[in-house]
């Protein structure tokens, strides 16, 4: 019983200045771990802090487990919201031992000394830090500190866990380890949680759902698979690192031109306007072929380009290809293609991999699959 309902939440900073959170609504179901994903300044941390009661929203309501936390005349202070929270910089109190840190939420609840110790050690065991119990935070590593902070957030079995970019201060390897640990804890304990991050890998691996935020609103709320394969807007696509961008326009002969080059792609032209679109492609969805050998049929098209660099990166190599004014990146296993700098190539695009976005401020995704196309 710990569903979180956020409704029409607005929070403005600096009296009339930026709206960090702008009429946002979001529901986190029981046992779900919703990841708030977005670049810095999109309002994700502000939203989390509003849920925690560390910021007071201007308007809107937040309910946890059916009880109003904020809304109308109610504003439940942080310490009565029944939450656990993990901070970006760990926020372990330097003057307390690890065990005292972890036992603190129990102490605040008035749990007796003996039980406090047992439960704190159990929580520490959960994150594999039990041997550290007697040490001070300054005497353990960053990864261990964040594990301890996790234990502290879990120990009192709060109805809601909040994560504020908990892995951002850790190095690459530790991040992967802790990510896995949080995932396993969520599977095992089934807590309800809200997790803020700007790292899409973290979002994909941890979230039962991911909410991409833009200017204080939810741009897309979806499970990781959907988010990854069908980013709902150009903004989401860009944020997810789908770097390749080409224009899609209709030529005077009525045929579609990709990046300025004529194609034989079959697109539902009756449904599409003449204004033109933006095409986005993952670099793993682009193939290269020797010049003149690229296929041209209903499902595939080829545009000519020039390789400007082949960046060797161990297992994978990235080919940078110039097509007209655009710079494309194609990633594949090393030695997939023999091309090097200044080689002319055909860039092969598959219809099923194309993400077509309207050329508007909203940049909404055009659903190609749902429309049955007719021949051009």
């Amino acid at each position, binding site marked *: 019983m710990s569903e979180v309902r956020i409704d029409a939440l607005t929070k403005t900073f600096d009296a009339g200045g930026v709206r960090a959170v702008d009429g946002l609504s979001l529901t986190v179901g029981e046992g779900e771990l919703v990841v708030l994903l977005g670049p810095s300044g999109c309002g994700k941390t502000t939203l989390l802090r509003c849920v*925690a*009661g*560390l910021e*007071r929203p201007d308007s809107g309501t937040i309910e946890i487990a059916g*009880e109003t*936390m904020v809304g109308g*005349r*109610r*504003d*439940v*202070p*942080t*310490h*009565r*919201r*029944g*939450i*656990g*929270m993990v*901070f970006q*910089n760990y*926020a*372990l*109190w*330097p*003057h307390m031992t690890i065990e005292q840190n972890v036992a*603190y*939420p129990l*102490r*605040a*609840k008035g749990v007796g000394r003996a039980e406090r110790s047992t439960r704190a050690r159990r929580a520490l065991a959960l994150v594999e830090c039990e041997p550290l119990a007697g040490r001070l935070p300054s005497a353990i590593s960053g990864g261990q500190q964040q594990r301890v*902070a996790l234990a*502290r*957030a879990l120990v*009192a079995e709060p*109805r809601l866990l*909040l994560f504020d970019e908990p892995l951002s201060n850790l190095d690459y390897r530790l991040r992967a380890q802790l990510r896995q640990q949080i995932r396993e804890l969520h599977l095992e304990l089934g807590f309800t949680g809200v997790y803020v991050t700007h790292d899409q890998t973290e979002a994909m691996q941890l979230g039962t759902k991911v909410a991409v935020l833009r200017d204080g609103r939810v741009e897309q709320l979806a499970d990781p698979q959907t988010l990854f394969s069908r980013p709902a807007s150009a903004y989401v696509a860009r944020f997810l690192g789908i770097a390749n961008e080409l224009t899609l326009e209709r030529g005077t002969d009525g045929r579609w031109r990709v990046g300025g080059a004529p194609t034989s792609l079959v697109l539902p032209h009756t449904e599409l306007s003449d204004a033109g679109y933006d095409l986005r492609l993952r670099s793993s969805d682009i193939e290269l072929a020797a010049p003149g050998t690229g296929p041209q049929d209903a499902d595939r098209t080829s545009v000519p380009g020039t390789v400007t660099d082949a960046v060797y990166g161990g297992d994978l190599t990235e080919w940078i290809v110039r097509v007209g004014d655009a710079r494309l990146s194609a990633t594949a296993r090393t030695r997939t293609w023999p091309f090097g700098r200044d080689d002319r190539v055909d860039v092969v695009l598959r219809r099923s991999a194309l993400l077509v976005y309207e050329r508007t401020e909203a940049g909404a995704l055009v659903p190609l699959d749902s429309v049955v196309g007719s021949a051009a």
Partner: protein
Amino acid sequence: MSVTGAGVRRQPTGWPWLALAVLLALLVVWPLARLLGQVFGDGLDAFRRLADYPGLGAAYVNTLVISLGGVALALVAGTGLAWCTTRVPPRLRTLVAAAPVLPLVMPSVASVEGWQYLLAPRTGLLNRTLRDLGLGSGAAGPLDIQSLPGIVLLSGSILTSFVYLFVTASLRQRGAELEAAAAACGAGPWRTFLTVTLPMLRPALVYSGVITFLLALGQFTVPLLLGGPRRIEVVSTVIYRVSAEYPVDYGLGGAVALPLLVIGVGLVAVQRRALRDEQRYVAVSGRTRQVGIRTSWWACVPVLGYLVVAVVLPLFALIVVSLSPYWSGQVNPSVFTTDNWVQALADPKTTSAISTTAAAVGFTLLLVLPLGYLTALSLIGRTRVPRAVRTGIDLLSSISLCLPAALLGFALLLTYSSPPVRLYGTTAMVVVAYVTLMLPFALRPQLSSLQATGPEYGEASRASGAGPLATALRVTFPLIRNGLGVSAALVTIIVVHEFAVSLLVTSPQRRVIGSLLYDATNSGIAPQVAVLALLMVLLTVAGMTVALLLGGRHSLQRL
């Protein structure tokens, strides 16, 4: 967990903080308002009496000369010392960097009296030595501390420590990488100093310049004790003389001090504006290190020289005098006696002054530290304090910094020696006066400690389910222990040293040690004065040690 009961509704913002603002206003603004009421109460009559007051023009000129001279001296010497301590070999750096702060432990009364015994025209020890060496002639000279230059030099020496504190903090915080970068660009040491070091120090220099200038404007101890024989008056001493006549002409005294009040408020306003774009001077590097600096043992020499002038020599003179049966300017170890000490400690006046001082320090700490904590909390912006209330608290808490101590003492004398609150002659009056005076000093270290610890510790505590009180007791206080220790040490030092307010608000029946010492200088018994001055030093050291022990081992460096 169900959420019901008290504290669930919108937290009542404002009211508790408004109460704090009102309390601060009562402490600081009320006395000032009453004094201004006296000044303007009978039209402009107070100013007419002001025009008739003899020697007032000279007093204003002296005040200005002493302030400008003292501050110029302190800025140059303080910056020089700070620069020197960065050039000291690493092994000695911690020790040498703490040395220029040491004079703060010396009460100014003690250094003034010490230098009197060294450089008084007739009986000064150094003067006698110089005459014996054939320099100067007759029974006096060649040097004279009881002169305007003497007052300027001694004031400058006392203020040097303050400038050093600010400048050295700024240098340390920045590290030497910027200088190293200038050197790598081909700039020589002198060019580096002029084009990088000095501009980067601007905020510290502006800040310390204004603070020391305000202190110098209110300078009281040095001119009162050194200017006496030649009748060199400054504004503060004039106020004191007005307060010593009965009935006290509060209108006149307030009118005398009015220009200082205006200058003080103006300067603090200018200072705030000047430091607003402080961002420009925040070093960008994450880590600060003292790298690539050429060190030299010679850098210790100026620091040692300053210590000798500010501490060693006057302390030596005081000890010698306190052990001599009488003082004639000669050191004669064969007649040394502890009689003066025995006598002083047996005198009920001394013991009562010591216990009054100790009690005053204790109660002041007890009141001003929590007050400073609450004020810091309201200023730091992590609690929901209405903007107007916060601005009010900010201004109220720094007003007493821009007031000359003698003026504040005068206003407090007026306020608490007449209805509705009659406290004159009680320890309570001394405590109220000290609390008013000490608020900025109790506030700043706690504020910077809070700022340094960051908001997330408190937030983590609240997110763990602890209420505001539990958070304060278990998390915030332990974390700002350092700042609390520094606040306590500062308050102790300044209260024990305090002279102007002490002279004004203590009655002859209830002296603190500072006012008792002034009585002794008036009766002219040098060994007695020396003993009391040394007792002040001892009290300071004792109080400071306790405060710093409470504050943990790092607080000394942060002082």
